[in-house]
């Protein structure tokens, strides 16, 4: 039995987990659920030694563990299978499985490949993989690679096996094979911890469900005793801790931006559309990979679209590249991953803020010479306005906290004076203070400055607090539209119950 006793984990400024106690039992598939930032991944990282708990104990079979890194966890037979495939494509299956213990198969510096292949075969049998272990990994399908990852995890004689969204890159058929393997491993008495966003899967495969919210454990239930509706309610239906911000009343305003018939071969969705009015905040709710971000990226021309029309203030516009969307039509997009896609971490705050509005600092429209004095004044203005906490505007963006980084990445688009702004998961990984600040900011953009705002989020409360109309995304489709100022004035509990219906 793996017992977690009162685990607390704090990062500077954020409490990621608070006093979490949960037991994982042999021969059980235990699903862990929660919204982004609820604390699931922090918990997984503590179990496998990547993070150390601030307080509390991890006890495996009666012995308290003090893990300093992942290798320590492996020594205690704890293994994790990550969402991403971490295999060496140019090495054979057997080599990949035995890579971390190759020294055991070595005599006088030479590897005994026969022995390696035999050992690998043993674990491949456990996951029902019937292929030649000498084949190179790069020839295999995603599903086979995932099976190899599991075989590799098992080869540590794992007692505890964590699976972090293992089906995210698999087809339904491939996922079914994976579930058969999991049921098989269950019989062998392995403790399995399963993280997934897909509720259908959780209902199908798990024995127990534990739900997290804001770093706290909401509850643990036997899967057979609950339904998806109840899970959704546990995930999102807390007492509302954000104020109802009021009415936007944008129904009579003119449509600022409209997209129709958007199709993508890359992401495989067809004929999706939406419109957003001036002074409106349109919510896009759905889980990661449900098509919300993909629709926006395709619409704006970041990824290729196979069909679709876009309109700005009623006139048709061609969004063939994002460069056009920004410079010609003033459409802004605050990206989901600020570190990878939003910020220039090695550059100064000033440079980041002014990045998209350099033409504002020209001597004149005829002389495209950037006056750095104007640029600095502009950056200073937004740093003050958004209360970005930094020693100087020349400080590197990478050295700021999550919340302040996000503010910089928003300031960039405000400085570019966009009329249509899309926020993609604007509060992931930011602390509570910055979160409520960013919420006020988004609200004011719509209410006071009459901007057209689209808010993409998997945080239900965020959308309920800010938007007065929302589209619900599931499996690359828009499954519902909820609207009405009065509807959003209801209690959060009622709203989330209503939303939960669409996920059943």
């Amino acid at each position: 039995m793996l017992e977690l006793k009162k685990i607390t984990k704090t990062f500077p400024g954020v409490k990621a987990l608070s006093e979490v106690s949960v037991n994982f039992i042999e021969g059980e598939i235990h699903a862990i659920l929660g919204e982004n930032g609820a604390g699931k991944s922090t918990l997984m990282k503590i179990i496998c030694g990547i993070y150390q708990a601030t307080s509390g104990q991890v006890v495996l079979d009666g012995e308290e563990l003090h893990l300093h890194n992942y290798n320590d966890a492996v020594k205690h037979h704890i293994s994790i299978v990550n969402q991403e495939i971490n295999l060496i494509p140019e090495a054979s299956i057997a080599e990949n499985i035995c890579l971390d213990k190759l020294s055991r198969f070595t005599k006088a510096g030479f590897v005994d490949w026969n022995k390696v292949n035999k050992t690998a075969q043993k674990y491949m049998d456990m996951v029902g993989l019937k292929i030649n272990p000498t084949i190179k990994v790069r020839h295999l399908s995603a599903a086979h690679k995932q099976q190899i990852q599991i075989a590799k995890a098992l080869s540590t004689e794992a007692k505890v096996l964590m699976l972090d969204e293992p089906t995210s890159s698999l087809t339904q058929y491939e996922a079914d094979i994976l579930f058969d393997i999991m049921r098989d491993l269950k019989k062998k008495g392995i403790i399995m911890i399963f993280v997934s966003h897909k509720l259908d899967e959780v209902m199908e495969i798990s024995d127990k469900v534990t739900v997290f919210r804001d770093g706290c454990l909401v509850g643990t239930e036997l899967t057979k005793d609950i339904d998806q509706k109840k899970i959704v309610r546990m995930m999102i239906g807390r007492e509302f801790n954000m104020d109802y911000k009021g009415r936007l009343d944008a129904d009579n305003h003119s449509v600022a931006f409209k997209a129709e018939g958007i199709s993508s071969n890359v992401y495989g969705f067809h004929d999706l559309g939406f419109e957003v009015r001036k002074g409106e905040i349109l919510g896009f709710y759905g889980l990661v990979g449900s098509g919300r971000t993909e629709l926006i990226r395709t619409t704006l021309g970041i990824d290729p679209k196979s069909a679709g029309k876009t309109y700005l203030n009623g006139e048709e516009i061609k969004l063939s590249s994002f460069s056009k969307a920004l410079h010609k039509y003033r459409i802004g997009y605050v990206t989901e991953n600020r570190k990878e896609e939003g910020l220039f971490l090695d550059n100064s705050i000033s440079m980041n803020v002014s990045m998209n509005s350099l033409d504002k600092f020209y001597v004149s429209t005829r002389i495209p010479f950037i006056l750095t004095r104007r640029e600095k004044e502009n950056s200073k203005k937004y740093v003050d306005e958004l209360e970005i906490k930094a020693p100087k505007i020349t400080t590197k963006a990478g050295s700021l906290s999550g919340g302040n980084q996000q503010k910089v990445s928003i300031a960039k688009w405000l400085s570019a004076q966009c009329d249509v702004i899309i926020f993609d998961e604007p509060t992931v990984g930011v602390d509570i203070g910055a979160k409520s600040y960013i919420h006020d900011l988004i609200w004011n953009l719509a209410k006071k400055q009459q901007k057209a705002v689209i808010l993409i989020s998997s945080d239900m409360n965020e959308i309920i607090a800010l938007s007065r109309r929302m589209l619900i995304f599931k499996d690359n489709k828009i499954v519902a539209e909820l609207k009405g100022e009065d509807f959003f004035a209801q209690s959060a509990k009622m709203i989330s119950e209503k939303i939960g219906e669409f996920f059943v």
Partner: protein
Amino acid sequence: MNSKNEKKSFRIIMRDFFLQSYSSSIVAIILLVLIFSIGTDSFLTQYNLYNLSRTAAVYGFIAGAQLMVAVIGGMNLAVGSVGALSCVVLGISLQNLGLPIPIAIIITLAVGAICGYINGFLTVKLRLSGFIITLAMSFIYDGIALGVSHGYPYQIPDAFASLGRAKLGITSGLFIMMLVFVIALAIFFKNTKFGRDILATGGNQQAAKLSGIRTNAITISCNVLSCIIASLAAILWCSRTASATSSTGEDWMLYSFAVCAIGGISLSGGNFTGIGFFCGAWILTMIRNGLTMLNVDVYFEQAFLGAIILLAVSVEAIRTRVAEKIK
């Protein structure tokens, strides 16, 4: 009391100076001048300085070619080969075709631009690293240069050679050109949108794309600029040495990296300091010149050069780490 305050402000000035990325190269220049002028009689003579300034200028342009791709995190292994090809093109234009000097220069630069376009286009379209593409292309450019010229040097008219020998007061025309070049680069990267877009692309290509920057176009442009500058360096080289041969540029690629590295230009892209870059070219030239004057065995010169470059980049690495802590 008063003197204490002054002392403190002096410390702050020194601290701010050492926080700048060019500080180690300025210190290096001062040290080198001291060592060479104490160690030899002929280092600090007017003639030597004039000579130095001409060589440093040409190295400045050679390194400029590497710089244009280094700022987007790329590299151009064909700097020298484009130089060689340019020399041959220039030689043919002037000697065989007897074209006027300005026309010959324009043709040479155009050939450079074409080479750069090919490099950039292939890098973007094949989605391969600049390393592979420019490595392959460097053999092709070299081969063409050698094949066309059969290794024979071309005659350069005196009028052309006198460009490279022009004296302006105590310094050379070439040096003034380099100064203008570095200042233009500094303004380009600081005050123009194009320059900023280039630095952004080098800093974070994904983010640049999502800031509306056409990163593929930037990659191609930088490769074109890189090879044009390499051609320009070749033209200056020919006028400096008064000959045009296909063997020009054999050692350019390594020196171009060396100047960038010494000058504190990150080879992973995203930054540029004019002062550092300028100092880089001077340090390299001074070391080569100074070692000769100190009567270092010519055959060992490379080893000393390498050791000094290693020293320079280690000092810079340590400085950066300390600076990060202080900040």
